[in-house]
């Protein structure tokens, strides 16, 4: 469980990035943190694995304050994948990149081998096992960064912009993988601008603006509320955009799922005798 209470954070440059943020994320929850650039999203989630410590307020992971444990100790339970993979990758080969943390955690070589196979396969990277991460495309490097964290199977996953540079198929795999983690009661927190991805996953959505939380609720509710979204510089998902423009027909507006959209529109057509 992640409990943040009245978290304020100021960078050494005195810029106050967080201005009193409180949230409770229970085990097994899937949360998408959204908001405009500079809203403090990345700064906030860096508190969840102790990379940053609050200037004022507190962050507790499973009841323990992050100021009372080291990043190394927290990392075992909280895996963090950065927005920019180049901030994270440093090994000669993809395989070594994935093995690095596993070795650090002192796992047995056979287990490390199995975990590497599993992570490579999951993220469609098997063919690049012996390749340098720096020869890969941007989207592929992002997946290497993800693989290296998933491989140690942390209880909580923090993914900063996981869909950047990913094609449709990879996004769909990521979505299915997150759903699978949900069934194992793992906590997943993503920071993202990708409204279409969030619309497909329909997680709890937290909107931030200027260092504060401005909305917190069900994805379907928040992603179909144009006034709230505009506050955070987010646009409606495409299906919601269509229904917003059909307001004259008296149809429900809180629609983000394409199959739900289809059913409603066909029913309406039938009702109108079309």
């Amino acid at each position: 469980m992640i409990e943040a209470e009245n978290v304020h954070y100021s960078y050494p440059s005195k810029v106050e990035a967080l201005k009193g943020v409180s949230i409770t994320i229970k085990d097994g929850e899937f949360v998408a943190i959204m908001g405009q650039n500079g809203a403090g999203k990345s700064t906030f989630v860096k508190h969840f694995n102790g990379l940053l410590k609050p200037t004022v307020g507190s962050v507790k992971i499973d009841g323990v304050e992050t100021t009372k444990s080291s990043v190394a100790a927290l990392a075992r339970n909280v895996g963090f994948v950065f927005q920019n993979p180049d901030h994270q990758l440093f090994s000669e080969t993809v395989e070594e990149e994935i093995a690095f943390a596993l070795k650090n955690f002192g796992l047995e070589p056979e287990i490390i081998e199995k975990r590497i196979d599993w992570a490579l396969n999951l993220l469609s990277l098997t063919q690049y096992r012996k390749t340098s991460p720096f020869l890969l495309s941007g989207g592929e490097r992002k997946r290497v960064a993800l693989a290296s964290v998933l491989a140690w199977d942390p209880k909580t996953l923090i993914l900063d912009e996981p869909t950047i540079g990913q094609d449709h198929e990879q996004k769909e795999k990521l979505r299915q993988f997150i759903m699978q983690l949900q069934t194992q009661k793992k906590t997943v927190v993503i920071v993202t601008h990708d409204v279409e991805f969030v619309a497909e996953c329909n997680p709890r959505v937290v909107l931030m603006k200027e260092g504060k939380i401005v909305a917190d609720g069900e994805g379907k509710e928040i992603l179909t509320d144009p006034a709230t979204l505009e506050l955070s510089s987010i646009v409606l998902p495409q299906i919601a955009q269509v229904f917003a423009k059909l307001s004259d027909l008296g149809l429900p507006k809180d629609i983000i799922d394409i199959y739900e959209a289809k059913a409603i529109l066909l029913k309406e057509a039938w009702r109108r005798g079309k």
Partner: protein
Amino acid sequence: MGTKVAIIETKNLTYTYPGASKPSIDDVSIKIEKGEFVLITGPSGCGKTTLCRTFNGLVPHFYQGELKGEITVAGLNTLDRHTYEMAKHVGLVFQNPENQLFALSIEKDVAFGLENNGVDRAEMRKKVDWALNQTGIYDIRERSPHEISGGQQQRVAIASVLAMEPEIIVLDEPTSFLDPLSAQKIFEVIYKLNKEQGITVILVEHRLDLTAKYTNHLIVMDQGRVRFEGDPREVLSNEETRLIGVGIPKATLLYELLKKEGLGLSSKIPLCSEELADQLLEALQK
């Protein structure tokens, strides 16, 4: 598509990075006309970025490796020209903005190319301010490009290229770190430059939901090759495009689901929510 003059043309272009076992682009023959807004998409690792790097000669001059076939950009054979010469014609915005920024302030980064070309001071001031305003970073122009967010860095990279007003702008997922509203504004600026000044735009994107509406020339790549090319309405409704993992806009998908069920929508395949909503209003109200 305007004057029908090819500004970029490749013939059987094949390129292999040093040490790579197979080519990253494989037998690519494309023709881009002056003033077009071209969208390139395809699964990650398909060769989109590499193809863009051939347009200003970074491939092969910087990356080395082996290039076969022909390529002409703005009337120049990139193989015979230095990249600094190509840079006057082709502005490239990289996928990762950090690879592109180096100056002490944002403003200096944006002015760098103009300074290099010996543009006079008053003119430079005007162009830099214009580019900073278009991309919404005028107010932070004195900050260091290394202490701002990834999204802001992308704006700086775009401003640096806009300030040069090149004939061709190549953008490789230029707004991936930006929030959707900011991304949309940047795309609108680029679209306007394309329409009003006839600048040729080549945009690499996965997110067709945001961008398909700007183009009438879509190129879909897969495994180094051009698999489909043409009017996006045709390419995106092709079943095979979907099979290679291209993300079809939701409005296009919903249109097809409804059409299949026999709803009387027009035959024009929509690329964005506005187009689909108009068709639905027409079909349900008439």
